[in-house]
């Protein structure tokens, strides 16, 4: 799993989690990206952004937040 890209957007205000996700996905044709966020709003925003870009999205709850898993 060394090719997993992790983006830690936990605790950041809107729209920074989406911006960081956008940056991480830029130029990426496929891969496995995990975005760490702390609120349901950020979880939804990151999920919606990635889905619109054609990524398969799943989310997991973790202590104090969520992991948004993006795969393509």
């Amino acid at each position, binding site marked *: 799993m060394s090719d997993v890209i992790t983006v830690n957007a936990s*605790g950041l205000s809107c729209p920074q989690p989406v911006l960081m996700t956008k940056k991480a996905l830029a130029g990426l044709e496929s891969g496995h990206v995990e975005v760490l966020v702390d609120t349901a709003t950020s979880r*939804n925003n990151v999920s919606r952004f990635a889905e*619109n870009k054609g990524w398969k999205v799943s989310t997991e709850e973790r202590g104090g937040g969520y992991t948004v898993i993006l795969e393509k």
Partner: protein
Amino acid sequence: MDRVLTSRNGPWIAGGLIGLIAVALAHFGNPGNMGFCVACFTRDIAGALGFHRAGVVQYIRPEIPGFILGSFISSLAFREYSPRGGSSPAVRFALGVFAMLGALVFLGCPWRAYLRVAGGDWNAIYGVGGLIVGVFIGIIFLWGGFSLGAAEANPKPAGLVMPLLAAGLLALLFLAPKFGENAPVFFSASGPGSMHAPVLMALGAGLIVGWLAQRSRFCTVGAIRDFLMMGDAYLLKGIIAFTVVAFAANYGLGKFKPGFESQPVAHTDQLWNFLGMVLSGLAFTLAGGCPGRQLIMAGEGDSDAGVFVLGMIAGAAVAHNFSAASSGAGIGAYGMHVTIIGLVFCVCVGLMFREKGE
């Protein structure tokens, strides 16, 4: 219902309902085009508590504690109550102060800017234009890596402060105690502060809107930001529905009065209508959301948003105590000064707060 509110159509539905409720509140007694105005209402609360002594704008507007408590209850019910804080709170306090100062130069928060347009107040077109420019300046900083830093999870009780403050305000509203001669709680006998919908109706409206906005993430600044920045129209749908439904309801009730002159709680100094909202739009964008959204996040347990709201209360006191607030007669003697100082402050914040590595 919750599935609908959190779906892609959620903003349409929430925005439309909030627009309808806003016009209903104005119809049943709130000042003209002021079904909801987070800035004006917060200013009225500051006045009721005696933080400023402008006698015509003093009333504990139940809509504001309603927003916080509606969001608090909703976030508990849907397991989204999440106490957090620690992202440059003093800066957020100052942003709240300046957002309020800008809003009181224009005479309305972004919510009221749209409601004013929906009522035919064309002066507000300059305000909405200023709002868009302010948000755009904020976007430039965001592209450059602007960040106030990460918040951290707080102990569970930390998120209770703002809901408790909201409950305390409601207690003061219903009990209406007097803390001495010429001391609060003050309730305006004339002017905008004396005009209000029935208390329980306004409180109910606030609670419902708090719930709707918590579920749908309704944000009048995020709507512009996300659309301009990423072409994402998700939140924009909310303010389009909000404005269109408010316009239709105003029209149906015969309250649509197009023009520039004699508009309720408005002035015609277009340069400062514009610049006041540039300041507000920029301050809200740097803080991550519009004033309504800050109240909603405060209800969810976000102490940083709570600090921003406290900053808005302080800003209202500054605006009236230092003759910076506008009135129907025009801008205040020091309205220009605070707007320029605020813009300089916000630009400095935008330039100085960057994530490492950007």
